[in-house]
């Protein structure tokens, strides 16, 4: 059967409408799923027990989210520099606490530790 030009146009329009409807209906769901996934990522779940854990929650969370912390891998020297920079900027950490945190971060988030896939995606960001 040969389709007339009008039939062809009607068919195309219908197909386009269906695609649009699917997109409109699916869009929010994809977005919702993504948001739900984001919400389930709680940085505190990625901090292993250790002497520095509590100190991090006392002296770092005032200025930034911790997702960037758990998503990075650095050597001990790298973490030392990061902690020092935070103190330069005003983090309320004492010298002995900085030492403890540096060691904790180096052990927990050293270059040998793989980064979980879900943390490679978008973070919630800083408080600022």
């Amino acid at each position, binding site marked *: 059967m040969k389709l007339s030009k009008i039939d062809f146009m009607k068919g195309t329009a219908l197909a386009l409408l269906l695609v649009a409807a699917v997109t409109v209906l699916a869009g929010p769901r994809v977005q919702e799923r993504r948001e739900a996934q984001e919400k389930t990522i709680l940085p505190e779940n990625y901090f292993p027990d250790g002497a520095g854990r509590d100190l991090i929650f*006392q*002296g770092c969370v*005032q*200025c*930034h*989210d911790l*997702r*960037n912390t758990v*998503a990075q891998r650095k050597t001990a020297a790298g973490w*030392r*520099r990061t*902690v*020092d*920079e935070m*103190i*330069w*900027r*005003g983090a*309320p*950490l*004492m*010298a002995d*606490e*900085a030492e403890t945190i540096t060691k904790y971060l180096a052990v927990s988030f050293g270059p040998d530790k793989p980064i979980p896939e879900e943390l*490679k*995606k*978008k*973070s*919630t*960001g*800083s*408080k*600022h």
Partner: protein
Amino acid sequence: MRDLVKEYLGKKVSRRSFISKATAAGFTVAAARSSLSALEPIVQAEVAQIPTHPDLRDAAMQTNSLRYSLRQGTGGELLAEQIRATGTRFIFICNSSGMGPLCDAVVDRPDLQFIQGVSENQAVGMADGYAKASGQASFACFSRVGGPIASANMYNAMKDRTPVVIVTDHMDSTADGRDGHEDLDDWLDAFKQYTKWRWLVKEGNRIPEWIAHAYKVSSTAPGGPTFVRIPRNVLYQTHKAGIFSRESISVPMDITPNPKHIERAAQMLIEAKNPILHVGHEVTVSGGRAALVELAELLAIPVTQAWSWAADFPTDNPLYLGGYLDPMRFPDPIDLFLNLGTSLPDPGSATTAIPGTAKIIHARVDSRQLGADYPVDLAIVADVKETARALTEAVKSMATKERLSTLRQTRWSATKTFTDRLRQSYLTAARNGWDESPLTWPRLLLTLNEMLDDDAIIVEEVGTEDWILRSFPFADGKKTKIGRTLGRSLCWGMGASIGVKLARPDNQVVSLQGDGGFLFGQSDSLWAMSRYDVPIITIVCNNRSYDEPRNNIMMKGGRSRQENKDMICYLGSPDVEFTHLASAYGIRGERVVHPAEFKPALQRAIATTREGRPYLLDVLVARTGLAADSTWYPRYSVAQARKRKV
């Protein structure tokens, strides 16, 4: 010279004596005679003490006090006379045909000094710095089309509530409102958000009235920039008008707080276990730092500094905690939040929320924000110095010495232990990176503190205030911090430092700039620095990056972070040689590449400024934070995109 002019106008010195005193003060005989001839019409006019303008006459009769004197002259001359009457000495001006009548007027008024800028924004920056350092309203003027470019520093002045009077010319009153040459439908509306008050003067005999009004509004706390436009033809025409004295436009704002409120606040302070004092710029503007220290030390209340262009509490005081954080590690939990002279911490910005368990007392002279963002327990509209004084007296009268002593001792000891440890921690963290190259921020700042005069003024416009505050003892009689602006629109610091040095010529002044901030059109100010021999040490902290935005963008973890692509913050290509920019303006300078070079270079800078010339140090400093090592940027070459080599 100003005093001499006053004496002459007050008929306390003769013409001959005027010339002899003026020449003794360093003016030429010709200049002294020229000044006398300029004053002659005033002397004649003052014979008629009663203003001729009906409104002025009525006002004068009502108050039975002649607080102004009559002048006749061009609009430009009346403008000059009114500026002079307010006590203004420096006129921050840019090239402008419309300022011709003022130029003509100043030719014969040597006590008014032009300080010319080559861009309007820098001229407003200079005026802003002058006002902040002197505590007096300053004056800037430029072309009628200069407003848009000046608006960034008008905005900064508005956010800081700095008293700056800004005047431009305006399309002739016979032709304005037609969207014609250099005209808009409404020139004032565009500046509504950037100014506390604005006006278009149409009658020449009211020029002094509106200029006086601008000074009054600008300098009455909470201050702010004001903006007056005067049609060019009106500036050139001759008018007769009363000039307002400085005293007549001064509105004392040392408002004392309601004693009932003070009593209640004092009671809350005495009963609080873990109070905190959060302070801002009204402390400095009111001259209330000493009163604040007395109050804080009376009860050993720990103090946090709000974002402010000033250091409002001594940074070397054991009670000084630094910036306010939520949660505070000390004291904890806060049960009373006494906010003096600033907005309450904004949960939408870097400063965070006040714990819901804390009672809030909010006291300041700017009532707009009182109780606006938080349900406060007690709001006090009053001068901050007066409030601090009244609270101190009330607390003393409401508690026994023994009780006060007990309260104080416990808190003082705990706070000092905490702040000593915090200070030690900063120094340890600074030492950890001491030998790194490029230079680290703490090494740069701590070295500056060591080598600069004890009473040096740091005009800063670099990203993170906390490492500035932690590195210097900012206190009365010690170093002074001016900047960064609350508005944080980059392009302020270089001009501001010139204004600061004009206001405080006998203090060492250092302009501390980031390379990114400097590139926001601030090399313009090198021109004025050089022309007027402004001996300032400019330090460009050159990390070839916008550190703060890079960290803020990367922290969000978006595509830039995932791909480690620094889209807009890397500045190393081209690698700007800031000393070459200085050299173009006849200013010596040097680049500091290795940390060991910094001290000797700073010594040369200090020596040069002592000789009376500015100096620029382009100091390479380390980048910090996320993607600090990235030198990537989105490349594009117009040359490569061409199809023809033209």
